[in-house]
């Protein structure tokens, strides 16, 4: 934007300024897309996630047997059938279509990821910004010491402990994961913000009398966004894994609801003979997490500083 403006003679009108801004925005978008798409795997990730999202949203119209996933359904005549053209992933021990249930299972996993991140990111980012901006103060010490406590225990164990004292269901498992996940964002943003606070643009804003909230949210925050977005995409994968793990041990989505982890756990009893009951939901978790990871790597490439 800057170099183009220099070439123009005299002052520029609002009209021209608007056009220049639009052009530069388009150029930035184009450059971002170029960087993202340079690695074909990023595209694979994006397409995978898109397909899974569409499948999950339109599950009732896509899957052959929606009732098997949404209603208490049994069909003992067709129980434990291996994969076939009629039941792509076979049927489970009470005759439900594993394929239909797996597609519905995506709904729980994606909901889990989205809600946990929506709860966790604003809180974690806010605390990280405050602690980083007031680095060295008591606020900093207080926030970061609490963060240290949560980071001292492996996330899965703390989530297990919290989920264990509550009634087991999806909402409580999301709550448990959220309670232990915010410190990771606090620590990330703390590092970024404490590096930014000594930059000239922050001192300039301070000198010109900008309010603290302006400095935090309009000056520092925009400069920390790209690592946050990258982390969010990668974290979708981790949250989904933790959610599936909680379901696997019976503290998440409750049967007969088709949580992916729940299905793996209930199918594990029938290994090795009816391997399809737990194998396909297990692979579905892998594909979903893989998609979010590839997407996250693509975002990281996109946000990476200009390489020469």
């Amino acid at each position, binding site marked *: 934007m800057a170099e183009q403006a220099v070439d123009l003679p005299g002052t520029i009108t609002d009209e021209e300024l608007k056009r220049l801004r639009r052009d530069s925005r388009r150029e930035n978008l184009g450059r971002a897309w170029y960087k993202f798409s340079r690695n074909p795997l990023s595209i694979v990730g994006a397409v995978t996630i898109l397909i899974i999202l569409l499948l999950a949203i339109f599950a009732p119209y896509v899957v052959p047997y929606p009732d098997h996933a949404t209603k208490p359904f049994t069909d003992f005549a067709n129980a434990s059938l291996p994969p076939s053209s009629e039941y792509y992933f076979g049927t489970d021990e009470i005759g439900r279509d594993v394929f239909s249930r797996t597609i519905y299972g995506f709904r729980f996993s994606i909901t889990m990821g989205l809600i946990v991140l929506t709860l966790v990111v604003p809180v974690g980012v806010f605390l990280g910004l405050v602690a980083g901006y007031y680095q060295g103060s008591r606020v900093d010490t207080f926030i970061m010491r609490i963060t*240290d406590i949560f980071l001292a225990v492996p996330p899965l164990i703390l989530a297990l402990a*919290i989920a264990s004292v509550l009634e087991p269901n999806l909402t409580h498992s999301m709550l448990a994961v959220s309670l232990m996940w915010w410190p990771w964002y606090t620590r990330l943003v703390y590092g970024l913000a404490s590096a930014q606070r000594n930059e000239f643009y922050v001192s300039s804003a301070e000198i010109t009398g900008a309010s603290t909230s302006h400095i935090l949210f309009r000056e520092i925050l925009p400069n920390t966004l790209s690592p946050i977005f990258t982390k969010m995409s990668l974290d979708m994968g981790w949250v989904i894994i933790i959610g599936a793990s909680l379901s696997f*041990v019976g503290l998440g989505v409750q049967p007969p609801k088709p949580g992916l982890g729940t299905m793996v756990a209930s199918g594990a009893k029938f290994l090795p003979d009816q391997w399809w009951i737990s194998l396909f939901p297990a692979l579905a978790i892998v594909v979903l997490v893989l998609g979010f990871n590839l997407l996250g790597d693509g975002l990281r490439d996109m946000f990476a500083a200009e390489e020469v």
Partner: protein
Amino acid sequence: MKLLPFVSRRLFHAIFVLLGLSMVIFLIARVMPGDPARVAVGARAEDWVVDNLREQMHLNEPLPVQYAYWLADALQGDFGISLVTRRGVAEDIKEFFPASLELALFSLVITAGLGIGLGALSAHHKDKLVDNVVRVVSYMGVVTPSFVFAILFLLLFGFVLDLFPTIGRLSEDMTRPPTVTGFMTIDTLLAGDIPAFFDSVHHLILPAMALAMGSMAQEARITRASMSENLSKDYIAAGRAFGVPESKVTRSFLLKPSLIATISILGLDFAAGLSNAFLVELIFVWPGLSRYGMNAILRKDLNAISAVILVLGVVFIVVNIIVDVIVGRLDPRIGLRSARSD
């Protein structure tokens, strides 16, 4: 900076983290609905028994006082009685923890050995077929939950190929060695029972592999990245130009500085191993702490839950201090700075 002040400062810091953790655990345990005294004696006990027990357990005191009593007991290693086993929780932990530790350590050895090996192999053949295979495999390793690996391995190596046992730590027909360390591999050796030793290693391999896959993949990626970065450094070219043998260049000039990043996340790997063991031990019916903790969680056995989390927190913190010391030794530039500078 000297080792001793560093370690003592880290330990000092760790005390605060542990105090905080104990508060969090205490709160979790007390937030739970239900009367711990009632739970302890069962639903059919008389009310006056429960009342007396409440008095004895200090449950009528305000929360901070309860916490002080709880902490004082915990510091003496008294975590109360487990509702599941009806024994002292400390006793239970002493029995079950070695099995988990053995599994996690064994998987750490696999992680470090294979992870570094694969990463080095990958960096050595950069952008060739081997490299690409390793990269794809390690990507899959990172995105696959350990319980999925456990099921895949159980199915493939346990049932289909029938190469490994699928349950427990020792076969039925082996004589159990007297418990000395609690590590089955060491105890069998101490008992001089060589077949049992091999049998216990045989039992360890599948669950340890399932646990190791994720961190191993991570290690391979990091080793590859730092080795290929260091490969283009001037001092490598200088070493070669001076005619230093290639093997020495690889081992002393390349591997050592490249391992710093790898080792610094080994602590995290160990923690991940201990927590993922919660799922893997369930699948392989491994009689460890995680399985004990899992049972406690499912039955809301608060004393046991608190103790398990606290023990794991302590292990995690100690391991991280050890890792920092090792990293400081490997890289004199890093020095042993305070915990916050990471």
